[in-house]
């Protein structure tokens, strides 16, 4: 069975100042995988996602989504930013934030209507946040805020989902809720790419993994490449992790 390539990255190099944050990244992500991007702090994990999504301008390299440039394929891609990237004291409600996921398909000027509201409510239901729909966003807990962000991406109804540390600072029940949604997405044939920090849970949650530390160390199925050798290469120390199937 030949898997289609969902995301293809060629020779990607990104620098903030002089020092490159990402160096010559080549990456092919097959359709339908649930992939973790792991690496130490400052390895460029978030930067990789942001460069793929066009938030940052790379110095060199190209990105293609299903064989076409990203600009033409935006509607196929959804993004869950890091929770800390926005001001949660902003005067708006949970439902409003989730509705923002529909703005992309609406385009300029057009306003969201009943159809968009229905989609947003369904997404809230999926992440178990329906009772909080009218809550001011600053009055939500960290885990709830993360779920709202996830719901906003779900509303986009994309084929590829990029998530920047969705498990950061959430409690166990939220983590389980999120991973179940991710697994459901994969079951539906979607491709999910997650910046991840907790190495212990990689084998349990993901089926594909990319090791990153400025350069790409390795990428492939978890069962083939999630080993001490690659971990050591990525983190520079002998990182012992027991792999459970």
């Amino acid at each position, binding site marked *: 069975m030949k898997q289609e390539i969902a995301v293809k990255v060629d020779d990607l190099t990104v620098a903030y100042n002089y020092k490159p944050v990402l160096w010559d990244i080549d990456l092919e992500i097959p359709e339908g995988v649930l992939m973790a991007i792991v690496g130490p702090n400052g390895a460029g994990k978030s930067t990789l996602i942001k460069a793929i*999504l066009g*938030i940052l301008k790379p110095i060199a390299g190209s990105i293609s989504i299903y064989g076409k440039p990203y600009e033409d394929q935006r509607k196929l891609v959804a993004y869950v930013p890091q929770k800390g990237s926005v*001001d949660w004291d902003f*005067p*708006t409600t949970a439902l409003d*934030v989730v509705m923002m996921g529909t703005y992309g398909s609406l385009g300029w000027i057009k306003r969201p209507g009943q159809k968009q509201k229905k989609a947003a409510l369904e997404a809230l239901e999926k992440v178990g946040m329906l009772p909080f729909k009218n809550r001011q966003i600053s009055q939500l807990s960290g885990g709830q805020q993360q779920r709202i962000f996830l719901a906003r991406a779900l509303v986009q109804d994309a084929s590829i989902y990029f998530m920047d540390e969705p498990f950061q600072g959430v409690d166990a029940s939220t983590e389980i809720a999120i991973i179940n949604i991710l697994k459901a997405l994969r079951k539906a044939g979607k491709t999910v790419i997650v910046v991840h920090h907790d190495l212990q849970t990689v084998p349990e949650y993901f089926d594909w993994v990319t090791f990153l530390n400025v350069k790409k160390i390795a990428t492939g199925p978890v069962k083939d490449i999630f080993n001490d050798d690659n971990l050591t290469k990525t983190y520079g120390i002998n990182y012992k992790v027991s792999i459970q199937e």
Partner: protein
Amino acid sequence: MLGSFAVLRKQSLLGDAISHAALPGIAIAFLITGAKDTNTLLLGALVSGLIGTFWIRGIITKTHLKSDTALGLILSLFFGFGMLLLTFIQKQPNANQAGLDKYLFGQAATLVERDVWMMAIVTGICLIVMLTFWKEFKILLFDADYTKTLGFNTKTIDILITSFIVLAIVLGLQTVGVVLMSAMLLAPAAAARQWTNSLSVMVFLAAIFGAFSGVFGTAISATQNNLSTGPVIVLVASVFVVFSFVFSPSRGLLFKQIRFIKNRRDLELHKTLAFMYHIAESHENISHPHTVRLLNNFQGYTKSTLQKLVDKQYVELNGNMWNLTKKGFETAANLYTKQTTDDE
């Protein structure tokens, strides 16, 4: 109204910088035309205000300077240059020169009908643009990166918002002047934020607060002979802000403090009751009297909490002795179980 956006972008000082940056524009426009036509002068203000704004943005993106540094830099640079030009103009043998300094502190009295019409029209345009691009403005303010991934040109939206803030400031210059303009922009928005958690309500309230400050301020200054309008308007707006900070129901200082004290009292009461419950529990007869002295060891117990418990008929007091009533015992028992289940 537009101030709401500035406040939410945490760029409150931008207004201050823009209004100061407008000053050299006014002076240069006067030097070139030699006339004191309001529209020409304001056009000059608009141009130099925009230049100042884009320099600030340039400094922030191209260098490592923080935004407040960039704002301060541009503010003092442009204002200094503007003052220099104003003094230069005053030395010139041109009879027209007098009155340019009204733009420093504003002089609403010099407004003529044509100016008012112009303000109304520009405000109308701002309103239409804001309603049209409401969705875009909102999402950009909340999460700029995400907006970009949705395919919106964030730069366009950003420039649109900034331009309208500049426009609003320039229009207000004539009324309240360079120095006080930022207060006019921000005060209504800051006040409005206290009352609501919805962006649309906030913008609406800010507009109302702004309008009221204008009307009241003008009215007050009209009753006295030597009160200039601009500063009075700003003072009225400040009163709105102070009032909002103190009295707003959810975010105000007063109600926060009241809620805080009330919570503390409730907890103290519950703890005292729980303590009494423990003592009473050690006896078979729950209404067995104990001395008040026993309670003195317990922190949080005061005479008034005891009195309150008596008022609620949880406790009966006889001289120096107290005993729990049946009602008090049951409440305390429930309180206790409720709290242990909450802990789990």
